[in-house]
């Protein structure tokens, strides 16, 4: 997809979200390719991945020689046909076919079990991501590099270095939105991957590094005003604060209560400070994903403390063997 076409596609989606995409505007922002919004891309990615997987299974079941290579080649050929002839881009289908095709091909490689296989898989993700300009595939490739580095106990450091590089890359003006998305995805996902890799024996260093990462992102956020910087700062600082809990010996509930109250207070204070602002930092409603509220409701339902009382003890049941947990909830008898 050409640069201007990609820019038009992204601007169209933004204007659509603000209900400003009238037919004349859409006509001016010409996008000859067939594209989808993010949510629909996810649906098509899953369906196409299922089709690719089933085709791989079919090749196996039919006893085709080198089924991975055959299935992979067919998937990539179909993806290229869709991109080149049918002009499908950002539909989710071509990304799944490219990724599925390459994974099918490398499934034919001899399985050595060596850690370098992570780099091979990472290369596959990077290749597929670069071809279909999918930022999540690119970020997944970087995560695999971090996983490889963790074999040498350097996972967290490499993750944060790559994360800082992504933050700095976001300072540049990129003409292609997908390039910016790649760095945005790396800046958000890599610190989380690094945290997963962080060992307890490096805890002090982990805290310092994540604190520095969060502080850098916050400073950049305040100077450059980009949501990704603020979100990266939240991630970095959350990790630093969570890890530092191991050095401050207070009960878990007190720790959680203090942290929770502090967050609510910050929200109140900033809201109060920005009330009435019409320029600079403001509080006008903004939906980053298009489904912010739905995501928040889903996260609330998934993470809310259990609220189910256990059944009353049966007659003859000897009490005392259970625990009680959650927000007044999960009877664990």
């Amino acid at each position, binding site marked *: 997809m050409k640069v201007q076409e990609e820019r038009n596609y992204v601007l169209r989606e933004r204007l659509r979200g603000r209900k*400003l995409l009238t*037919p004349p505007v859409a006509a001016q*922002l010409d996008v000859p390719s067939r594209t989808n919004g993010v949510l629909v891309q996810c649906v098509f990615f899953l369906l196409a991945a299922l089709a690719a997987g089933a085709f791989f299974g079919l090749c196996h079941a039919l006893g085709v020689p080198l089924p991975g290579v055959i299935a992979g080649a067919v998937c990539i050929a179909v993806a290229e046909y869709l991109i080149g002839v049918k002009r499908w881009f950002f539909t989710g289908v071509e990304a799944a076919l490219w990724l599925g095709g390459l994974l099918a091909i490398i499934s034919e490689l001899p399985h050595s079990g060596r850690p370098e296989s992570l780099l091979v898989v990472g290369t596959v993700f990077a290749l597929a991501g670069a071809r279909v300009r999918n930022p999540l595939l690119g970020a997944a490739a970087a995560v695999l590099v971090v996983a490889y580095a963790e074999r040498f106990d350097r996972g967290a450091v490499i993750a944060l270095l790559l994360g800082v590089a992504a933050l700095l890359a976001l300072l540049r003006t990129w003409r292609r939105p997908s390039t*910016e998305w790649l760095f945005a995805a790396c800046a958000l996902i890599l610190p989380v991957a690094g945290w997963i890799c962080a060992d307890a024996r490096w805890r002090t260093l982990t805290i310092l590094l994540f604190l520095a990462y969060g502080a850098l992102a916050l400073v950049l956020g305040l100077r450059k005003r980009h949501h990704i910087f603020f979100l990266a700062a939240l991630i970095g600082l959350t990790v630093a604060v969570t890890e530092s809990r191991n050095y401050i010996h207070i009960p878990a509930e007190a720790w959680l209560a203090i942290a929770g109250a502090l967050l609510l207070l910050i929200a109140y204070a*900033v809201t109060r400070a920005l009330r009435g602002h019409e320029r600079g930092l403001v509080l006008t409603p903004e939906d980053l994903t298009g489904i*912010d509220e739905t995501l928040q409701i889903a996260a609330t339902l998934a993470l809310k403390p259990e609220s189910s*009382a256990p059944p009353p003890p049966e007659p003859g049941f000897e009490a005392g063997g259970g625990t009680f947990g959650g927000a007044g909830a999960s009877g664990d008898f």
Partner: protein
Amino acid sequence: MSPHMLSFEPELHDLRPLLGDAVTDTLLARERREVFSLQPELRLIAWGGAMLLATAAGIVLKNNLDRIGPLALALLMAIAAAACYVGVWWRRSRASLADDYVLLLGALLVSGDVAFIESQFHLLGANWYRHYLLLAVVHAAGAYLYRSRVLLTLSITAMAAWLGIEQRPFGFLGPINAKELALRAAGGCAVMLMARSLNRRAEFAPVFEHFAANFAFGATFALMTEGGTRTLGCLLAITLAAVVIAWGFRTRREAFVLYAFLYAVVAFDILLIERLDSEAIGFLLLVVSTIGAIAALFAIHSRFRELRA
């Protein structure tokens, strides 16, 4: 190019005749970051705060039962929850986004407290599971009073738990078979449709509709979990999908059409694959049906784009 990061300034300048000066200037101010909304970050922070406080409250209940006693703990929790509700109500004329999350905290504390009281005092005895119904009513009242969709969702999930189709699924009332689970899910759907017809808040209608559709599909998929009712479940799912798709087209609601179609494809595959004894034909069927689904979904998506244009 602009000195800023990704910016659509050139395109917006070109669109000025179509968008008008006021809209273009607003959009340009955003592109230049002269106006930058911190609302998404603050919502995230406030939500995190509410969730952490609710979790802390749960641990307080768990760890201090012997030291403080159940009655005092239950009262403390009730006072905290009431303070959240009253505080938000009191500030309603100058409400900020953080108030939404104080309300959420209050609702989570109520949920925890009701469950705690029931677990300690067994007020409902053998009918203990009715505390879910109580929670459903309380959260529904809160949702209407404060116009909160989050509280409405908490209410619906509590209702689903009362019916035995959520939270402690498939067994908190003893083992339940596929038919019983399907009946309960169908009951949930009926409640949602009734609530939808009685509802007077426009912003709540989609919530009821989505839950009604998913409970109904849940009922058909419950039937598919047992061999004896699998065919019936598949046929019902396909029929229901046809109804939901038709309704989605009539009301121009793409999300319903998309997921009804996906449910139908899964039901169709299960229906056919169960009747096949060849692995290869099973895979072939999966490939063909998935490609067919992709093609059909593309057509549906294009149709909706045309309708929107």
